[in-house]
């Protein structure tokens, strides 16, 4: 089954790394297929940052995401910009501290969106003591809600991707995110 994921936020949140970790988890550790792409446009130089991952147990032909099954918004700007592409009955995970939820109430209702609130930034800051791991917290939340990759694969992909010496903190962050939802 082909699943399309889009993760968006602002620069510095580790959005791109989150996409790479998901893709790696699927293709190297769950042994299914994944394609990760990202926005290289001038927008990548400004505030906004976006990555997309296609995950499938079949061979992936078309590598791009047009109508994501799962949208993860780590900023309000990203949420408003990409919300319309989300499939009806799709999964929307937001960081509630970084978005203005009132503005999407109608959209969520109209399209039967499954809305999840994962306060990744707050959890990273308060529980782990490292704001920089908000993206890893968010991966925990994504894995919990969507099942697109296994917990074990996600952990292995995290260990494979983060700088040496930070493994424990990152696994803690993943687990904290997994426990959020």
């Amino acid at each position, binding site marked *: 089954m082909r699943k399309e994921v889009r993760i968006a936020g602002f620069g510095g949140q580790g959005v791109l790394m989150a996409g*790479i970790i998901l*893709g*790696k988890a699927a*293709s*190297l550790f769950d042994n299914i*297929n*994944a*394609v*990760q*792409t*990202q926005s*290289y*446009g*001038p927008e*990548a130089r400004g505030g906004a940052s976006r990555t997309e991952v296609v995950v499938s147990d079949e*061979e*992936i*032909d*078309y*590598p*791009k995401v*047009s109508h994501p099954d799962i949208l993860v918004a780590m900023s309000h700007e990203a949420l408003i910009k990409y919300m319309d592409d989300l499939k009806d009955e799709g999964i929307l995970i937001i960081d509630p501290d970084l978005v203005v939820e009132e503005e999407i109430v109608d959209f969520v209702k109209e399209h039967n969106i499954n809305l999840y609130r994962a306060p990744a930034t707050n959890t990273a800051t308060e529980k782990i003591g490292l704001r920089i791991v908000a993206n890893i917290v968010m991966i925990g939340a994504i894995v919990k809600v969507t099942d697109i990759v296994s917990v074990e694969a996600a952990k292995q992909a995290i260990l494979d991707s983060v700088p040496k010496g930070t493994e424990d903190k990152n696994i803690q962050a993943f687990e904290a995110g997994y426990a959020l939802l």
Partner: protein
Amino acid sequence: MVEEQFVLGNEACALGAIAAGCRFFAGYPITPSTEIAEKMSYLLPKYGGTFIQMEDEIASIGTIIGASWSGLKTMTATSGPGISLMQENIGYGFITETPMVIVNVQRGSPSTAQPTMSAQADMMQVRWGSHGDYEPIALAPSSVQEFFDFTIEAFNLAEKYRLPVTILADEVVGHMREKLIIPDKVNIVTRTRPELTDDYLPFDAPENGTTPMPAFGEGYNIHVTGLTHDKRGYPDTNNPETHHNLIKRLCDKVLANRADICSIKKEFCDDADIIIVSCGSPYRSVGAAIKMAREEGIKVGSLKINTPWPFPEEEIKSIANDVDNIIVPEMNLGQMVHEVERVVAGKANVHLIGKIGGVLHKPEEILEKIKEIHEGEC
């Protein structure tokens, strides 16, 4: 040991180059190819090789030609404006029979146009871009794995036929991450030294062939020139026969070996009523479109061209006997379609889906054309 990595197409290219024995890279930063130079700058010193960032693309290709004659396998990587700048020295590579690999990660063109967006803008430039008659070899990857595999193949073909080989990638395949399987052993073509005899003639090659390449500084004392030269390598510019024999041989060493060089992949063609001929990234959209069409009961097949140059004439000619309609999706306003039309020669209808703007064809766009043709035929 077989190794698996989740990497960018551009990184896979650099890994493929190292696996093929490339030990020299010269380049100039340009989007969307820069990650290849970055990765080579990191990898080459680890393998005893040399990386140098040059002052421009003209310098980059000059430098890899020089390094090739020093006895190394060499590569450069660039995109649109950079490949335009390299054209003169690419011609020098052909006439002097210098093996080297040129990676062109195509982007929206002409001029500066769309640095971060994809295109197949240079399909014809790689064929005709340098002045004069020559027959290039080019390979077009459509996945991260192919970018790795085709890079190795490019080095092998460059050595075997002694000429510049181009990898015609594009932004989509350069900038996507997928699983890459690096085998523990790859087949590579190693250069052989010519025998140094008293009557050694460095450019005395058999018809339709080439001759072993010496390295500089080993006593061969050869003269390598971009001028029309005789079998000794000496300029002989006003002799029509010398020029004819030289250029004809350089073209024929590729054309006469099409069967060895050309590579295609045919899928779902056996029962197909329509065949889609694609090359590079659009193949990915074709795969999705064919599945959708077959779900609706329309029998569509795919012929993917791995080596746009030399153009796989026989293979394309043969599908024109099997179907009445051929679709050619390209990320330009029509380049390879002219080759398909030339070869098909009216035996089948050729439909271009030319798309510019920087993004891959959506499978739905190809499906729409399939349906349009299908309905017209019914």
